[in-house]
């Protein structure tokens, strides 16, 4: 029996990829460490090396195939002592290969739920739409704003020549040059201070943190230097800067790389805090953030980067801060969420609908300012509320919303508000424990059943 070479996982969040190019063919002798193929993940094109020595028996997945799941056999290798005959791929293994005939390169992993709410105030009815990933939307927003305003520049680790650690800044170095797309050393404290200082002096930096976990090293400049200067100067000097990057858990990256900072930054007066879910919001809100005269914390999510959504095909499309979006109208309960929490909220709403419970789902989109009015109006209609977020429970956005609802709509409540959050633990590494630590749609469903007494 020949050794199967399997489609490798080349990033923490990779579930499938494209076989961009084969560098070997059947019958080739390969050595350990030799490059067999180029594999394209959602982040980058990677070279895939042989582990064992031997002769390539067969290529099971054709060049150009996309959507190849991790662990799918992609080739067979005849190692010493085997024969070509015994190495012939079994029918069962061979079968999926032709099936993997090139799919459309940018096919969405799964159709995203379409908002059922009638009101979509962000763009006029009849606007032509295009499908794009959150990643592409963010890149497009930066490119448009850099073209529009010469003082806007992008700074961060690997934003230039590497094309972005998560490929958000792909192509921007070529388009705008090294003066405006600036690679930094790995010194968050220092370069955050430099970017803030340049904003004092009239530039409009977009500062990318490779992840917000690393922004902890720079949090003094975010809070003390950026957020407070306008107030401390009596309105004389502000700090127009966007701090952006992925926030929250990715997949299997452990405690130090899996924290949601939404509630932390949302607490700080002087900051604006944005946490988009969809690609349209990512684009429209990032453009608004870059034009804003204040320090803006823009919290992205690695898992959402590759998700596709419909984005209005408009030359200059922005979304104002402080306006929630109602993704789904309902009558029995209000589910309030933001960022990746929306994935769980919408999945829960689908499950609940199947059981005859009608959930209204609200995406806050910005956490400072928060659109309280939309939440209160919904609770006054449904009389019940569940909040959904990935972060820790103590001092969460959900806690704050619960208190606000209690103050402003106490007499409308038919049940206590429940906060669905991540568990109150550092993120574990083990797959089963990580799953347990993270929020699930089923937990949201259970919370809704509790507040609706079902």
């Amino acid at each position: 029996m020949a050794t199967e070479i399997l489609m490798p996982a080349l990033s923490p969040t990779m579930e499938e990829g494209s076989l961009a190019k084969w560098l070997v063919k059947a019958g080739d002798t390969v050595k350990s460490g030799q490059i067999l193929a180029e594999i394209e993940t959602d982040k980058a094109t990677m070279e895939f090396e042989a582990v064992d020595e031997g002769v390539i028996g067969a290529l099971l997945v054709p060049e150009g195939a996309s959507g190849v799941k991790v662990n799918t056999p992609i080739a067979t290798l005849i190692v010493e002592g085997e024969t070509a005959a015994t190495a012939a791929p079994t029918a069962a293994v061979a079968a999926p290969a032709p099936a993997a005939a090139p799919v459309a390169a940018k096919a969405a992993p799964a159709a995203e739920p379409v908002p059922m709410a009638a009101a979509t105030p962000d763009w006029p009815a009849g606007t032509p739409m295009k499908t794009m990933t959150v990643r592409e939307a963010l890149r497009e927003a930066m490119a448009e704003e850099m073209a529009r305003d010469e003082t806007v520049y992008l700074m961060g680790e690997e934003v230039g020549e590497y094309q972005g650690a998560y490929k958000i800044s792909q192509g921007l170095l070529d388009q705008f040059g090294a003066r405006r797309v600036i690679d930094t050393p790995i010194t968050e404290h220092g370069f955050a201070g430099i970017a803030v200082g340049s904003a004092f002096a009239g530039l409009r930096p977009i500062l990318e943190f490779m992840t917000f976990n690393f922004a902890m090293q720079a949090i003094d400049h975010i809070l003390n230097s950026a957020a407070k200067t306008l107030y401390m100067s009596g309105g004389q000097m502000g700090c127009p800067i966007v701090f952006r990057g992925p926030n929250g858990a990715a997949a299997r990256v452990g405690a130090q790389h899996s924290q949601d900072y939404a509630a932390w930054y949302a607490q700080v007066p002087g900051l604006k805090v944005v946490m988009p879910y969809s690609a349209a919001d990512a684009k429209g809100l990032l453009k608004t953030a870059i034009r804003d005269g204040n320090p803006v914390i823009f919290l992205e999510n690695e898992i959402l980067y590759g998700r596709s959504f419909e984005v209005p095909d408009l030359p200059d499309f922005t979304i104002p801060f402080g306006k929630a979006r109602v993704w789904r109208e309902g009558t029995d309960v209000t589910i309030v969420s933001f960022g990746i929490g929306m994935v769980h909220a919408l999945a829960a709403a689908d499950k609940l609908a199947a059981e005859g419970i009608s959930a209204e789902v609200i995406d806050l989109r910005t956490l400072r300012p928060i659109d309280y009015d939309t939440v209160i109006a919904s609770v006054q209609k449904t009389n019940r509320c569940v909040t959904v977020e990935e972060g820790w429970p103590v001092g969460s956005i959900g806690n704050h919303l619960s208190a606000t609802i209690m103050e402003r709509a106490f007499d409308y409540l038919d049940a206590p508000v429940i906060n669905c959050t991540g568990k109150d633990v550092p993120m574990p590494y083990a797959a089963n424990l990580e799953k347990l630590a993270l929020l699930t749609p089923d937990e949201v469903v259970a919370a809704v059943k509790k507040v609706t007494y079902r």
Partner: protein
Amino acid sequence: MVSRKAAAGASADRPNVSREELLKFYREMLLIRRFEEKAGQLYGMGLIGGFCHLYIGQEAVVVGLEATAKEGDKRITSYRDHGHMLACGMDPKGVMAELTGRAGGYSRGKGGSMHMFSKEKHFYGGHGIVAAQVPLGAGLAFADKYLGNDNVSFTYFGDGAANQGQVYETFNMAALWSLPVVFVIENNQYAMGTAQRRSTSSADIYTRGAAFGIKGEAVDGMDVLAVKAAGQRAVAACRAGKGPYILEMMTYRYRGHSMSDPAKYRSREEVQKMRDERDAIEHVRELLLTGGHATDDDLKLVDRDIKAIVNEAAEFAKTSPEPDLSALWTDITV
């Protein structure tokens, strides 16, 4: 301490200086000293609250460096900032009124002693977190380079701040990107109450840029002419696009770290010796008198003039109204 490095350093040279310039230095340094003395007085009367860090003793540093600046050059410093503001031409009334937390202050009473700014004079604060102003100052220089002008940023910090990690992150990037920033280390010998020898492994802070290829000089910071001469070298290098430059100003603060400092960490004799032998204002006064550039009476007129300015500032700071209560909710975001 001061004399050792000054003797060894390249800063012993002095520029030719005109009578007018000497008088200007005398006047500007005296304004800072009298202003600070008055601030100390108002603090004692309870008119100034919280933290108040006086610049008395260090006047030659900012006055000498301001003599090398041109329009558009930027400056940024720590919480010991009153002297820097006066030296760059900010109005003493507005500074003093900020100390008393009044609407007429530079930050309308919302910043206080440590947090004042002037866009007009290119003064970027007033920062209360030790060493935070170092990358911020490099950022000001980044903006100038980005915009393609030949301005420089004077980034002041103390011998205490020189031990902060972000200083070295900044040295690295400032050198890497050739930013036009003059790092001015005001070495007044004490990081709050900790003598330099107790906090700093190597005494010569100006050499710490060597690892990044940044030129550094130790300068007699009690000699305004030496300060100016060194400043001119640093500024010329920055304007010529040669990247950052470090000036370690050997200076001394006569007063405590802040108003609440009991000063148990040094002797009265040490302070008195510096005042008697190395005082920056006395030094210029002597140059003026012995050189025949001014008479005692001339200088008395200057003293009287400065006293009037400071008294006027104090009066303004006492009578300016407190901010309107509505100001609590303004200037949070634009």
